[in-house]
């Protein structure tokens, strides 16, 4: 499926997506077992925040790169094909 031409919003989402992969490799906490709020190991706290970051990235992707053309394509009246 040929998507519409890339725009700056889509490029930003892709850039952040790659950045998130890099941010996931948090080797700097590797040996650190100190606790945040007295109970949460810092390595786990970081990755919990990472999960929240994924949601924010999802929100950005929906706002800036939502494939609205796909919905229109799916709803076009064409005879359904069964294989």
């Amino acid at each position, binding site marked *: *499926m040929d998507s519409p031409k890339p725009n700056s919003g889509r490029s930003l989402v892709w850039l952040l997506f790659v950045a998130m*992969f890099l941010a996931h490799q948090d080797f700097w906490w*590797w040996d650190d077992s100190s606790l945040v709020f007295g109970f949460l190991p810092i390595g786990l706290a970081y*990755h919990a925040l990472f999960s929240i970051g994924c949601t924010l*990235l999802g929100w950005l992707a929906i706002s800036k790169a939502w*494939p609205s053309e796909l919905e229109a394509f799916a709803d076009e009246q064409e005879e*359904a094909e069964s294989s």
Partner: protein
Amino acid sequence: MTTLIVIIGYLCLLLALGFFSNRLFRGTSKDYFVASHSIGPFLLLMSVFGTTMTAFALVGSTGKSFERGIGTYGLMASISGLVHAGIFFLIGIRLWAFGKKYGYITQIQFFRARFESDGLGYLLFPILVLLVVPYLLIGIIGAGKVIEPVTAGAFPELFTNPSAPPWLGGVPPWLTGLIVSIVVLSYVFMGGSRGAAYANTFQTIVFMIMGLVAFVFIIKGLGGLDQAGRVPARITEKGTIVQDFRYDKKESQLKANDPPKVVGKVKHSESSELTDHQPHFSRTPVTAEFKKKNPKTGELISFERELGIPFWTFVTYLFIPLSVGMFPHLFQHWLTAKSAKAFRLTVLAHPLCIMIVWVPCVLVGAWASGVLPPGIPPPAVLSAMLNLLVGDPVLTGLLTAGVLAAIMSSLDSQFLCLGTIFTNDIVLHRAGPKKYSDKQTITIARIFIVVIVSLTYALAMVAKDANVFDLAIWCFSGFSALFPVVFAALYWKRATKQGVIASILGASVTWVYFFYLSGYGGEYFVGPGIVPAAICFFVASVALVVVSLMTDPPSRETLKKFFPKLS
């Protein structure tokens, strides 16, 4: 006994939900297989999340954290939040659009049309079935391992041969597996895809709420959050691993061990600063030796365990969550969506839902290292913690029902999916769409579902001692090795039938090779800790690209159909 009554009550409630969803069933095969494309955002989120979170998420994550510590979260949960959401966005919505427009119900129908190949369907069918079956086994084995400890003592004269001596009289895994299989079969049989979506939503809400309740009670049992942080096993200056606390069940409180109880010793570590280190709270690999009792002879035997996560394992684990793009049961859930907009909530909330479920489980697993014997089977850690710290039989029953909910919310989709692909990709495909009436089509699917449930149950009894987490990883590795096929189908016009067949064969051969080297389902790494899924993925990708470029591209009609100009 009270605990058991609560669990039975929950299962009866599910059966009632099955009867209810049967009343909403519209009687057509389209409704049975994909709920007539009528599922809205909330039900889609709950059913997709409930399907991806199985025994693996609750029982497996707690057990893995008990073995390897908090790195388990980064290893599987946080990366899954990113990769899963990306796949829903990039793969799920596109497949939904093609499915809705061209009437596809299964992945194989899509691939047959996209790559103009009938044989591709016959190649993929057994591979998908063989990969879903271990996933099903995880659920049935996991359910058995959860129920036995929490019902220990209920029937001491009836069940005299427990998996471990303290669980004498508990409901044995074979009986739990049988009951869970029958309950899931009942509501899938009656309500099909719509029934599974409603049951998944109900069960996902139950296991998320119960997971949080369990977490609160475990914290309370450990004496509060601050105290819980001090509980995990600790390494002394002599290199021994000690438990500083024990839980006194009679007084229902945590007490200090004086002197600390030695449970193991460090054999090897790359870190020199280990004194007073809690290895379950960091990710530096530490090889330790522990002792456990042989359940039959009572004799103490030594075993080694690697705590922490090797660097290359952590990096290459990102290939495992790619499996979601090729799960046939998830494809079916995507197809139930009413519109593309229904995916928005799933993309947004899936990473948060993962966090809500996994952070407590991983913490409980790490805390358990300080109060449970190290030799306890990892899948039994969560229920052992509930049994030890919560105590109240009603609450334990409700919490266990929550674990069962997580397990069954995956089993239903997988059973339904196998019935769907057999009916559509084999029976109807060979006979032609007009040979069977809608009613007969549903009957064929139901018969196959009964057969697959029976076979899975028998297999689960054979593999009852398998490690739930490791078995899941093998299943996910197989699906992630097939990911290049779906990605190329959607985004690379030049991908050809021959390229895809080469990719599937490459993925299969490498997977089987590593599976054999692992001793058929154990934990296995290549070289410095690389997961086999990364190598299978690489081989499959290279085969796809090289063979596609060497063969003729797909026809213009096919390319026009699957790569239309969109504005």
